[in-house]
Structures are given as C-alpha cells and as structure tokens.
C-alpha cells in the first residue's frame, strides 16, 4: 500500500483526510453509486405550472409501460407537512402546485429510462391560478394567496405572518430615529443580491428499502441523518422509530442537502412496492427543485461622527422565500442578527420580511443570509471611510467590538480575533502601498477590504467514544462529513484527548439507530459543538481508564496520566504504566464493564437580552459563538469590457484553534471561490416564476482559470473558552466578506459604487463610464 504521510496526527496537524484514499481511487460510494438487490429506479413528474389547482390525474398510460412497478400521485401520500420553521410543505404537491418543477407524481420502474419515460406519460388536469413571481407581486393588494392555510400551520417559533408574508422579524437596540441627528455623515443605499445555486457537483438523490416488518432504511445525499428522519416522518406521518437513516459519502452540501429533497418520495415508493427504490435527480431537476440562496433586497443607512465613530444603522431586508418556508425564517432572522457586523454601533434597527412567491423554495446556503447583509453593510463602511477621508481599515479598527461588548441583541462574545485579522491582512497585503495598484495597459487594479463575523452554531449534539478490547477506539457522533472533513478533525480531537495516534480511532458512519443525535452539518457547527462532545466523551473514557489503573496500581486517580501511544501511567514514574489493551481487557473480562464515554448537550446561550434589545418574530433564541474575519482582495478590471477578475486575496480568519490547518485553508479557499462566483458571475435568472438557466451551461461558477491561485489563508487563533482545544467553526465565514471585499475593490478601481450583484461586466462598465470619483 502506498503510505500517505500521516506522521503527525493530533490536533494542529494537517492530517490527510481519513477518506482520501477511498476518494482518489474512485472507490468512495455516493448515493448514485449504490445498488441494492431488486432495486427499482424512480423518476419525477414535475409541474409545468407555477401556481395551479390540481383537478385530477390520469396515470393509466404510465402504469401500462412495461417495467413500471408503481405510480404515485399526491392522492397516494399522507397529509403530513414538514418544514424546519413552518410546517408548510407536503412530501409531494397535494391539491395545488406552488412552483414550476414541483413534484406532482412519481414513478418507480425496473430502470431509470423506463421510469422517466413513464413519468412523461402522466397527465394532470390543472386549473391555472394567478401567479405571484416576486415579493413585490406577492404583497400587492390583489395578490393570489400561496398558502391559504398559513395561519393554521404549526410553527416552531412565534412567527409574525399573514397573507403571503411567511415571517416578519425586527431587532433593535438604542434609539435609532433620534440618533441620526448626532451623525455628521450618513450614507444610504439600496442593495440587491441574486439567487445563487449551491451547485454541489453531486446532484441530490436517495435510496429507500423496506424490511419484512415494514421498517424503512434510507440512504441519501444529506447533511443530517436526523433532519432527514424528522422531515420524512413528519411528511409521511410515520413514527420516527420506523425509519432508519444512513449516509453514503456526500458530494458536498452547502445548505442544499440539510433539509429534505427527494427522500420522502423514495420512502413512499418503497413502502408501496416493498422493494428498494432509488431516485437521483438530473442536473436540471436539481437546479429547479432543490433550493438556492435567497435573493435579498436591502435598504441600508449608516451614520457616523466626523471622527469616524459609528452612531446608527438601520437595515431593512425583503427576502424571496419561494413557495415553501424551509430554512427561510431562520435565514431572515440570522441575517438581521448579523446586520450590525463586528462593530460598536449604539443605535441599530434591523427588520425584514420574508415573502412567499411562486418560485422554487430558497433556503440555507453557506453564510445563511450573512453574505447578503455584509455586502450592504461593509460597502457602507467603505463609503463612510471615503466621505471622511479615513483609511477603511482604520475605520474598522476604531469601531470594532471591544472585550466585554455584547453582540447585536445582547449575546455574549467570549473570543474576538478581529483586530488581529485586520492587522494581519493589512500587513500581508501590503495595504500601505495604496488602494490603486499598478496594472497592465488597458486594466485597472485596486484593493478592497471587508470585515465580518459569523457564528459557530447551535442546537443539540452528542458523541460516544468506546474503547475496544484491544485498546483501540471507535468514535460515533452522528455528524455527517459532507466533504468538509469533520470526520478527520473529530478523530484528531479524540486521538489527542486520548493521546493515541489517529489511526487507532475509527469513526462510525452516522446512523439514526446507533449514533447520538446531531442536528446537522450546517451553521459552521460541527467542529465546535460536536468537537466539544467528542472531547467530553473522550475525557470520560480517560477517567475510566485512570480508575482501572488506580485500582491496579493502588494509587490515587490524580496521580495518573495518559501517555502517548495509548498508555496510562503514574506521574513521574516512567516504568509504572499500562497499555489501553491491558486496561480494556480488564474492563471487558474482569471488572467494571466495557469502557464507554458519552456526552450530549444543547447550545443554550440566549441571543437576545430583553434588557438591551427589542426583538419581534426572531426564530433563534440561541445562535452560537462568534468567529471573525477580514479579507482584502486585489481586483483587476478590463477597461474595454468591464470584466472584473480577482488576482489575489488575503483572507484572515479567526478559527479559535486550527485543529487541522490544511482543512481550515481548504475551507477558506473554497469559501472564497464560491463567494467570488456569487460576487461576479453566478446568478439564477428568473423569467417570471421560472428559472431561465437551470443548467451548468447557462449558470456559471468559477473554473480553475477564473479562481485566483494566490489565495492567502491567514489563520488567526483567538481561543474560544468553551471550544474544543479553543476551536470554533470555519465552514462559512470565509465566504461571508467576499462580495463586499470585491465590491469595495471594484468601487476603488472605477470610482463608482455598485450595489447590485453580480458585478457583471455590464454593470462594471456602466459604472466605469459613469466615472466620477467615488463618493
């Protein structure tokens, strides 16, 4: 076997991914690669309409196709509804359709071609309803109602909703209206961001299988086996004990695979046919039906004193929810919580509306609303710097949150590496050379900066660490590794906590039957929340190991220490030691019982302190601990066409502690390029309710030639007191400041502030020709 370099394995080492060999040999199994004996293949019949009542189905022709095993329509599904915040979504359209592409019927057949052919033969009788394609249309007085039952839907938070408004949220501190009078400079503007596709290279899919007792096993492309279980059981009205969820390798999730996609469809088909059923969406179906980043319209106003002290901010946002609630209320609430940024702004009010439309649902996407508001707010910090003639970095440093300051709303901030991020980015980018950089003929180059914060979140997590008979270890957390590398860093933590090499720790694949609950791989939370449980569970194993040793050596537990290589010994007495093998053997066969350490917890620090802030309709009572970052981008503009390219970037991110620096860099680099796509080229174009570019040919994400090679990751480690080894998350924050940093560089290069993403050649050229000096 070609050995991989695994000389260093503990916390702080860039250990190669545990599954790297499996992936480079092509042996890693993803959902589409799975086959079960007797398996059927499914296909979806999708709605051609944006909004229509379903009057009836004719499936006779489809049923008659040789090889077809089962055709199901909305009539064949229970009346349950799922939804992370508002239970508004059936497993399949029932009674009416609410967006083009919505699944209306499903077919299972002996092969995929047959299933697709049959699905196309299903006839559905519709009565068209008026369409509300945009939030503006949906809040108009005569707008059609998209969810007649909204008032009665179950909601997990005190939602303020009505008509087509799914949720309204407001958060404020201080006296914003009065504060404008104290400002010497006020900037105000309207910002707009488009829908962005997650574009995991793996399209979604699922495979369900039923045993003789009618219990279902479900594999799917997912970010949480537990959310899959909850969603499917809600939609299909199954007891959770009747559904076991597992995961194959996941071809990346950026929020798109957190909540359900086709899982309920295959479960129902498997239940009806008694056979395994697999459904893999093609790329167009994936584009049109899974979910995408919310389009935001933001009005933002920020005021400061002459000396640069920020005084007041008001931000209002309107989000297109799409046809179903999904994670949207959370995205709205979270984006408002982030709207003050990492600064002291005593008077601040943020409010927003989430509006149902007849478009595909929008949902969680890396950053969870934060990149959109940060685009607006960090643009305005630069505008204020321009108006006051201050250096943008100095202005940010001057106003940054200080130790002891609370987050907007009142949350506790324990660690804050922002100042170090700003200083390190300043130094590495040689900011002092000036913002306009030398450029080749016909080009302009400039630097732009943005700072930001993000959370490492929240909710419930657990870990089980077991010592096997031979002293090796199995770690079981229920956290799905979606490619970001959590299995590796959790293993490193477990290995470090027990002082064993990482290859002595096996990581169990998530299983709702056997793993402790884990809300999901989302919100930059696994390293922080699950890591904490891993360390706590490993510590419990260590305690038991020491207790055995203390009984054997007849010494106090406090006199014992773990030693490298899986040994326990008496402090200061090198030859008094036992191997984990000896200890575990004793536990298994003689005394105490097998050694298992478990830990579970739920994040419970309140995000709102009612003494400081007023909050209405906020879905997050707790959100997590804070990370900080600062990014400087060097952008080149082609004067002929207006095309903007990023040529170099410095991304300084506070991760608390880099458990695996190579992985942290991977998140920073990947987050940057995905954010760059959002800033420059990616846009889901809608023609009314319909997506006009549901293909990779028409929707363009950056290639290796578009992404700059010079992405400098600067790791800042402001240890988080409660974090495992001091760590906090890095999954999302690297994307958050990207659009703002690029827009600020573009503004510096062309002298015009652009407030609408993406910064297409057309918009940049227009801005450049408009010319003028920035502000």
């Amino acid at each position: 076997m070609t050995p991989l370099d695994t000389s260093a394995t503990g916390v702080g080492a860039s250990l190669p991914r545990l599954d790297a060999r499996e992936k480079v040999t092509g042996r890693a199994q993803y959902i589409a690669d799975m086959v079960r004996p007797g398996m059927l293949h499914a296909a979806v019949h999708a709605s051609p309409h944006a909004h229509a009542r379903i009057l009836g189905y004719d499936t006779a022709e489809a049923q008659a196709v040789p090889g077809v095993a089962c055709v199901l329509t909305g009539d064949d599904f229970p009346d349950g509804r799922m939804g992370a915040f508002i239970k508004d979504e059936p497993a399949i359209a029932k009674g009416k359709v609410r967006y083009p592409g919505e699944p209306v019927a499903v077919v299972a057949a002996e092969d995929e071609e047959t299933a697709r052919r049959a699905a196309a033969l299903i006839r559905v009788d519709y009565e068209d309803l008026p369409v509300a394609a945009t939030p503006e249309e949906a809040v108009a007085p005569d707008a059609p109602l998209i969810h007649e039952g909204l008032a009665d839907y179950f909601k997990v938070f005190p939602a303020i909703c009505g008509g087509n408004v799914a949720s309204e949220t407001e958060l404020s501190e201080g006296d914003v209206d009065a504060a404008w009078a104290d400002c010497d400079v006020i900037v105000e503007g309207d910002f707009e961001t488009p829908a962005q596709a997650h574009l995991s290279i793996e399209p979604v899919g699922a495979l369900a299988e039923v045993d003789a007792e009618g219990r279902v096993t479900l594999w799917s492309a997912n970010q949480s086996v537990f959310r899959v279980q909850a969603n499917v059981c809600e939609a299909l009205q199954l007891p959770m004990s009747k559904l076991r969820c597992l995961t194959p390798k996941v071809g990346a999730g950026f929020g798109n695979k957190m909540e359900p996609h086709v899982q309920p469809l295959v479960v129902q088909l498997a239940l009806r046919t008694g056979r395994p059923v697999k459904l893999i969406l093609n790329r167009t179906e994936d584009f049109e039906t899974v979910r995408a980043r919310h389009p935001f319209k933001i009005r933002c106003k920020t005021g400061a004193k002459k000396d640069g002290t920020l005084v007041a901010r008001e931000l209002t946002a309107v989000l297109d929810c799409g046809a179903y609630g999904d994670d949207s209320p959370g995205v709205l609430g979270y984006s408002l919580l982030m709207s003050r940024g990492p600064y002291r702004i005593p008077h601040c009010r943020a409010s927003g509306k989430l509006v149902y439309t007849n478009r595909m649902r929008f949902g969680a996407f890396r950053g969870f609303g934060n990149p959109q508001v940060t685009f607006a707010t960090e643009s305005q910090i630069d505008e204020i710097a321009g108006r006051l003639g201050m250096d943008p970095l100095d202005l940010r440093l001057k106003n940054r949150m200080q130790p002891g300051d609370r987050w907007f709303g009142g949350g506790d901030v324990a660690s804050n590496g922002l100042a170090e991020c700003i200083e390190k980015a300043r130094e590495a980018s040689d900011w002092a050379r000036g913002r306009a950089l030398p450029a080749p003929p016909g080009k302009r180059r400039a630097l732009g900066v943005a700072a930001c914060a993000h959370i490492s979140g929240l909710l419930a997590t657990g870990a089980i660490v077991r010592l096997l008979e031979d002293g090796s270890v199995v770690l079981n957390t229920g956290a799905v590794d979606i490619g970001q590398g959590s299995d590796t860093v959790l293993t490193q933590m477990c290995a470090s906590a027990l002082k064993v090499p990482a290859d002595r720790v096996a990581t169990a694949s998530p299983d709702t039957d056997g793993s402790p609950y884990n809300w999901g791989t989302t919100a930059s939370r696994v390293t922080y929340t699950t890591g904490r449980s891993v360390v706590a569970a490993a510590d419990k194993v260590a305690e038991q190991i020491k207790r055995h040793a203390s009984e054997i050596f007849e010494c106090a537990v406090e006199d014992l220490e773990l030693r490298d290589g899986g040994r326990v010994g008496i402090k200061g007495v090198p030859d008094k030691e036992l191997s984990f093998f000896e200890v575990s053997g004793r536990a298994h066969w003689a005394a105490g019982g097998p050694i298992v350490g478990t830990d579970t917890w739920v994040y419970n620090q309140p995000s709102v302190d009612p003494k400081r802030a007023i909050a209405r309709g906020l879905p997050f009572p707790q959100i997590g601990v804070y990370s900080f970052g600062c990014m400087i981008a060097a952008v080149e503009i082609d004067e002929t066409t207006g095309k903007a390219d990023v040529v170099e970037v410095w991304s300084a991110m506070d991760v608390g502690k880099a458990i695996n620096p190579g992985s942290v860099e991977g998140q920073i680099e990947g987050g940057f390029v995905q954010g760059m796509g959002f800033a420059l080229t990616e846009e889901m174009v809608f023609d009314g309710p319909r997506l006009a570019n549901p293909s990779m040919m028409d929707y363009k994400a950056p290639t290796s030639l578009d992404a700059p090679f010079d992405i400098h990751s600067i790791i800042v480690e402001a240890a988080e007191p409660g974090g495992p080894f001091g760590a906090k998350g890095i999954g999302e924050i690297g994307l958050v400041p990207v659009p703002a940093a690029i827009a600020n560089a573009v503004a510096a290069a062309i002298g015009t502030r652009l407030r609408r993403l993406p910064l297409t050649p057309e918009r940049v050229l227009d801005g450049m020709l408009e010319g003028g000096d920035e502000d």
Partner: protein
Amino acid sequence: MTGEPVTLRVNGAERPVAAVAPWTTLLTVLRDEFGLTGAKRGCNQGVCGACTVTIDGEPVRSCLSLALNCADRDIVTVEGLVPAGAPAGALAPVQQALAEGNAVQCGFCTPGILISAHALLRRNAPLTVDEVRAGLSGNLCRCSGYKKIVEAVARASEARP
C-alpha cells in the same frame, strides 16, 4: 438493455456488453454495466467534468461519448490509474499528491480531476501553475477553490523522473 453488442477496452481489459442502445453513453455503460462508478455524473451535459475519462490517452467526457462509438478505443478511468499488477492499495503519484495535499474534499470531482491531471502529467516537463490551471479548467470543483488541487498536480509534475 436493447441494442447492439459491443466490446470496450477499459483499463486494459476487454469488456463485452450484450446490448447497448445507440443513445447509451460510455458513462452509463461504465457505471451501470461494469460497476466502474469512479466516473461520476454531475451534469450529463459535458460541463462539470466529473465523468472525464481518457480515450486513447486524451481526456474526454464519457457523458458525451456514445458507447457504440467507443469500440476499439483505449479507455482509462480513475480505477485504471494504478497500473495493473501494482500491489493492493498502491496509488499513482498524482493520487498520492492530491490525497496528501488536502486537495480532496467531498471527492465528487476528484476522479475527473485525476484523469485530466494524469493526461497533463504525461508531458515531461514540470508544469507551471498556469499550465495546470488551464489543463484542469474543464473540471469544476465546488469545494476546494482549486488552489490545493493545482499545487498538488504541480508538485506531482516536479516529482516525475
């Protein structure tokens, strides 16, 4: 499957299929008939690159290659990057470079990237960063930001004898 019989030469082995329909792509045959699931279907439109294999030494899209049109050609998939007869678990240098260079995240793009990289590495000279960037520009990766992949491939090209 309806259609004609065909024999494909994949990773050095002659592999017959009893019946292949005219519209069936090489990708489908590799995955569904031969169980070679290393090549992935990301788009089925030639854009993403996850299905890239080499035909007669050149990287191409297996999703755009009709299986019947691939008779008498030499097809290499990610499963064939390690020469036949190498010890179990052996890796080609480019596979090792990606694995050790933290250049593999979700891994869905990885087989296609490896095939494109492998074709690039058949050139003798060490590759510059820009040559690697151009050579891999037909393989989308949504996770990595490309930097570590490009570094790994450039490093593998320097290590060549």
